[in-house]
């Protein structure tokens, strides 16, 4: 795709700021260096295969109108004339500033439009956090060091990106791809601003559906394993993901976090390649129900976890005045270890 327009804005968080500072910047020349840099960023971020997001419309609007303010700006950037695109990019910069609070650093918002022939357009948004860096120059006698504060990092884990592409028709540009490494960590609600507040999107892989895919892959993996060590590793992963503070997962992230070696490959073989990197909101109950996984806390402080079909097969729930648990079986292995969340 050929980049034909780019805008850059310095954006300061404004959501909780007393002193209002509007984003500054605008269009800049599309040089071959810029084109190469943007292409390199796309490739290193693997943006084309990152999480799918959908523009979220008003669920109470039954008028039949297809309304979404951010989508409209994206379309102006990809297909509009210069003044429409410039106005749209400026609106996005202002909107981003309004969504950010002091937990986020000042950032560079770059908005690029590309075209593939006549029909397919693309709008890419990048947000790079501001950092400080030392510029070093050796001199004949000694050295010169300067502190640069107007640097925006291309490789920071706080960087974000979004890509939308398609034809200029009513059913396209409702879905895009997003890179947001904060969302996929334990940053909680602060991390939602890029997808939810700024882009006004939701994850394309719905929580229950994504959780079911994860659970089904776990189950198929477990059924395939013959090694006790691998079964225990997988079992540990099941217990850990249930109680992790992280709310958003993808199959790739689950595999990287909890599984090693061959077990990781086996697990990922049960998830379609197109879905492996898609993020979803993990739903604990849906996960447990799908795996028929139960955890019991007893009055004596003991925790008993029963995977898959152990209930009524060595683990019995007795009903009466109070519910009691009876668990009986042959010990195959015994460990003492600290609990890993």
């Amino acid at each position: 795709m050929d980049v034909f327009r780019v805008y850059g804005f310095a954006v300061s968080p404004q959501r909780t700021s007393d002193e209002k500072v509007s984003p500054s910047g605008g269009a800049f020349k599309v040089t071959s260096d810029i084109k190469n840099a943007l292409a390199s960023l796309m490739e290193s971020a693997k943006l084309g295969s990152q999480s799918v997001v959908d523009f979220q419309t008003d669920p109470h609007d039954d008028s039949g109108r297809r309304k979404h303010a951010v989508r409209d700006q994206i379309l102006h950037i990809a297909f509009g004339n210069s003044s429409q695109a410039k106005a749209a990019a400026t609106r996005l910069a202002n909107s981003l500033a309004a969504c950010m609070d002091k937990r986020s650093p000042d950032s560079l918002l770059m908005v690029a439009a590309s075209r593939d022939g006549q029909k397919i357009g693309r709008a890419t948004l990048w947000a790079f956090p501001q950092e400080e860096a030392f510029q070093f120059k050796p001199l004949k006698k000694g050295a010169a060091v300067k502190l640069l504060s107007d640097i925006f990092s291309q490789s920071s884990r706080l960087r974000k990106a979004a890509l939308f592409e398609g034809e200029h028709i009513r059913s396209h540009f409702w879905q895009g791809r997003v890179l947001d490494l904060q969302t996929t960590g334990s940053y909680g609600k602060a991390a939602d601003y890029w997808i939810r507040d700024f882009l006004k999107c939701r994850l394309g892989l719905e929580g229950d559906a994504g959780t079911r895919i994860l659970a089904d892959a776990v189950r198929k993996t477990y059924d395939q394993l013959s090694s006790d060590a691998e079964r225990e590793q997988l079992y540990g992963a099941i217990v850990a993901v249930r109680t992790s503070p992280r709310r958003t997962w993808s199959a790739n992230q689950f595999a990287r976090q909890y599984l090693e070696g061959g077990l990781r490959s086996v697990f990922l073989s049960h998830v379609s390649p197109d879905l492996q990197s898609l993020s979803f909101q993990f739903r604990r109950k849906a996960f447990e129900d799908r795996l028929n996984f139960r955890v019991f806390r007893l009055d004596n402080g003991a925790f008993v976890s029963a995977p898959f079909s152990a209930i009524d097969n060595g683990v019995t729930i007795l009903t009466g005045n109070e519910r009691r648990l009876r668990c009986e079986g042959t010990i195959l292995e015994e460990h003492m270890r600290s609990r890993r969340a």
Partner: protein
Amino acid sequence: MLEKLRIEFSARHPLLESIAEKLEAETKEVLIGMPRIDRISFRAKGIDSFIKKVAKRTGDATYSSPLSEVEDQVAGRVLVFFYPDVVDIQMRLKEKFTAIESIRKQPMKDDEFGYESHHLVCQIPPHVLPEGWLSRADVPKTFEMQVRTLFMHAWAEPQHDLAYKAAADLPKEIRRELAWVAASAWGADKAFERVWEWQTRFSSDDARTQASD
């Protein structure tokens, strides 16, 4: 050009059928626990029906990319017993699928009777798509969903076989007959709704009386 389109659409039809099958399963999963659903069904648009739809658009309205623009290549329908269920079902569907368009189709004027239905146009979720689909520009990204009562459906469905182009083509008496059927369907829905509300009120009054005894 239509012949070329027919060949291209026919080639992908098995994939559309697969999407329809998976969407039906997904919708059934999404609506588990919702009461008073009569049936959930999905279909891939027939090849002849697709070509006919594309051919109908002429002049400025012509599809520039019919293979991606026609939005009901996969479509589904949920039939429910009572009108309030239509509202509840479509809210659940909007929660679980991304709807880009929602419209309550009904006659324009208050004293008219005709087609009624709730229509949604939703993103096809990524996990029901064939591999590589998301990266292609020449494929549909959306599907249509209709939510209706049984009576709304009873009026709407035979219209396909009556095969008239526009109501204006019909003689006045026939138009009045069809309006009467639509009004009767509307009336039947209203009657059922009143009975359902009475039943619900009666059950809670009865429960309160028993509780106070």
